[in-house]
């Protein structure tokens, strides 16, 4: 019973299903966009662009595959194709220069979101997005690799480097404040220089 009107209604049913699939992903896409674009308004523009891109590309979406990962990949591509990257970096450098990190003396002390955002902003973009996808977005390494268009091993190493770097950035904030570490480092350099000159 091939009938053109049947085709049309099948198409419209698929479109309806696609929309119903997209709807619950909007909050997720907004959150991911916020981590990339920083500024909430720019982030929402990015998320809306991605949503429309996803809609326009709906014919290429394979039903039954992970729609969340698929839309995140579209959003990420959109972000980089618009070259917002350099803009974002410039903004972060300024933010970092204007504020100082606050100490985390107690490892159990709550880390403020502001500190975390600043710390994330200091990571290389690849590490930041890998950590966010896996650590906050709930993606498996394999999914994050598909979103970023890189190997699974690359994602794993980016996530682990991001975790270490973030921790050391947040700890350095503590040292920057009281200056003790810097003084000690200088003292030990001087002591070593003394020993070396005395040994000759």
């Amino acid at each position, binding site marked *: 019973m091939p009938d053109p009107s049947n085709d049309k209604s099948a198409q419209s049913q698929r479109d*309806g299903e696609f929309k119903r699939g997209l*709807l619950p992903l909007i909050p997720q896409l907004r959150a991911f966009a916020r*981590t990339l674009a920083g500024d909430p308004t720019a982030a929402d523009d990015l998320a809306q662009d991605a949503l429309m891109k996803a809609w326009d590309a709906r014919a290429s979406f394979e039903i039954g595959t992970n729609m969340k990962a698929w839309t995140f990949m579209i959003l990420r591509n959109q972000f980089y194709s618009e070259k917002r990257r350099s803009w974002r970096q410039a903004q972060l450098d300024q933010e970092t220069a204007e504020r100082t990190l606050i100490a985390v003396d107690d490892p159990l002390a709550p880390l403020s979101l502001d500190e975390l955002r600043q710390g994330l902003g200091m990571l290389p973009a690849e590490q930041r997005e890998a950590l*966010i996808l896996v650590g*906050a977005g709930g993606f498996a390494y394999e999914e994050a690799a598909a979103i970023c268009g890189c190997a699974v091993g690359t994602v794993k190493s980016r996530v682990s480097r991001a*975790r270490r770097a973030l*921790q050391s950035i947040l*700890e350095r904030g503590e040292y920057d404040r009281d200056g003790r570490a810097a003084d000690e480092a200088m*003292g030990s350099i001087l002591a070593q220089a003394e020993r070396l000159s005395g040994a000759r």
Partner: protein
Amino acid sequence: MISNMARKTPKPALALDEARLRQQAIGAQLRLMFEEVVKEPVPEDFLELLRQADSDPDIH
């Protein structure tokens, strides 16, 4: 100087524990940062965009 060094370098096991706790704190905060935006009400623009997308307008 020596007491200073001793204070600065904790026992390895303790340092490892502390690192783990900090990582857990960072992880929890990372999820919170993301969830904060997820929980925001979706701006009407987004829903309108989907509503107006071509093809059938029967989603709502």
